[in-house]
């Protein structure tokens, strides 16, 4: 059954790339929930994560276990700098102003990355070799297991954080109603800063795990960010589990579309499905209608 194992192969790579879209979508949601901003620099966090990891492990030859946390640390710093110097100084923010600010930041990040890493595409060796593992007639790249495994860990940690810690609960409260949260003594501004830190960190993780599969260059951020945004919207903006489901769905569709229909149209197929879903259910698969209508431009 050649077609059967082919489909298995496409689904495997689809789930892998979909996990990354899901993490990026979670990053969008975390910032969206605490600020109603769509952070168009989210994709650049992913790019910076991948390239920073390459800097530590390939150029400085640090082992993975040290390079990984160091990269996440660098990204949290980038998140802090971005929020303090670009989001927080704006006095009367409107949604469109904030969108343009985050786009400007993404251009800035891209420019910095080009100055630091040059225009070349960089390679990050897979975490545990490249020898494929036979799986139901398909070959499973060990990096796929790393990607899916780390995604599961990130999702579990985030769920625990939002459900069982005081800070996580405070952030959830901000997402539900910012005014009420601030009346309860929650420092909303600090939560905004924290949301940027968290998004930058998990964006960085997405970059680290995907770099061995797709390689990384200074201009890769935009497309990854776009897919992540697509997943966040498809799942219903701000919806945690919707983002994961939609990310995986987009990844698998893209991979099947590329393999079975035409590789040039892979992005178009994923986007077309996204548009159709939005036209049928304007608030995304799991979105609530009121949420979809509340911000005007």
């Amino acid at each position: 059954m050649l077609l059967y194992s082919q489909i298995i192969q496409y689904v495997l790579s689809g789930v892998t790339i979909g996990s990354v879209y899901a993490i990026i979508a979670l990053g969008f949601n975390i910032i969206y929930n605490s600020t109603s901003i769509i952070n168009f620099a989210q994709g650049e966090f992913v790019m910076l994560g991948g390239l920073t990891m390459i800097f530590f492990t390939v150029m400085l030859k640090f082992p993975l276990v040290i390079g990984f946390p160091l990269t996440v640390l660098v990204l949290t710093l980038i998140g802090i700098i971005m929020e303090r110097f670009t989001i927080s100084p704006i006095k009367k923010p409107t949604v469109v102003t904030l969108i343009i600010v985050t786009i400007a930041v993404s251009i800035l990040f891209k420019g910095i990355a080009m100055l630091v890493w040059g225009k070349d595409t960089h390679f990050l060796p897979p975490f545990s070799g490249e020898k494929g593992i036979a799986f139901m007639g398909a070959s499973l790249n060990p990096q796929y297991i790393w990607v899916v495994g780390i995604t599961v860990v990130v999702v579990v940690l985030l769920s625990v954080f939002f459900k069982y810690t005081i800070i996580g609960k405070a952030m959830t409260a901000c997402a539900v109603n910012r005014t009420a949260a601030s009346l309860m003594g929650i420092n909303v501004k600090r939560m905004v800063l924290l949301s940027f830190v968290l998004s930058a960190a998990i964006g960085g993780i997405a970059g680290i795990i995907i770099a061995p599969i797709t390689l990384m260059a200074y201009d890769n951020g935009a497309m990854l960010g776009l897919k992540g945004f697509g997943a966040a919207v498809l799942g219903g903006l701000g919806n945690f589990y919707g983002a994961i489901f939609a990310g995986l769905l987009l990844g698998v569709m893209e991979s099947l579309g590329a393999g079975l229909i035409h590789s040039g149209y892979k992005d178009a197929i994923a986007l077309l499905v996204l548009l159709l879903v939005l036209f049928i259910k304007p608030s995304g698969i799991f979105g609530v209608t009121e949420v979809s209508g509340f911000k005007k431009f």
Partner: protein
Amino acid sequence: MDKKDSLTLLILTVCLVIFPFIVTNTYYISTMVFVGINGIIAIGLSLLMGYAGQISIGHAAFFGLGAYTSAVLTAKLGFHPWGAFFMGILLSSCVALIIGIPSLKLKGHYLAMATLGFGEITYIVFNELTDITGGPSGIGGIPKISLAGYTMNTDIKYYFFVWAFLLLILTLSLNLIHSRIGRALRSIHDSEVAANAMGINTSKLKIQVFMISAVFGSVAGSLYTHYVTFVSPSSFGLFFSILLVMMVVIGGMHSVWGALIGATLLTILPEFLRALKDFEIFVYGAVLLLIMIFLPRGLIGGLEYLFNRLIKKV
């Protein structure tokens, strides 16, 4: 159009006529042609964003539809440039109607995503429909357009040609804004529910404005095609769509004049920054960021503020 607008329009026209006599460098004239082309799309987008309050991150698609219709019909099928020009307008408005009906029901970020998706799909189609569009390598050998016996074959002629179009479109837009439709649009921007309650058919009006802005995009696309006489998909991607939105916002969303200022700045700025080589992207991002942080109402908002302070002092 009110008195202030007419006066500004007059001053602009005079400046535009004088410009090529003072600046004879063809490089500057050619940059001004691109300012005009981008300005036409930005004005259309500002009607949609600033007045109707609907975002579109896919307007490069309409620019591309106009450009490709002109290119394919004239270079491959031997159409008359003006025939192709109007076919482009027809195609863009039809596509805008088909895309607009379901999309404009969406709101906020969902609308942003839908228009972005539409723009990307169009871009991919330009790339993949190799038989018609020539794929990534594009279409060359597009004939020049002529008007009243004059072939637009020099930069100077094209400069006047494009800016005449822009002034026409600007006048139309200013009249539209100050008409009943313009007031209705502003009411949608402020509150769609209230506008509906006042008896304005908001969904119809939003689609109409979307179509108008698509037509402006198509016009700019055709003008672009006959100027550079070559089209390839890379000019019509996501980056250009985002650039158009930035032109409108950086210039000042609440005014079509802002769109024109934004288009001028964002077209000329990269030309200046080119000397910085590798630092180009970095400085470009920094300039945009500073404008947005310090002038959240855009450049025109800043100008208005300065002007008002000046008047108070006098």
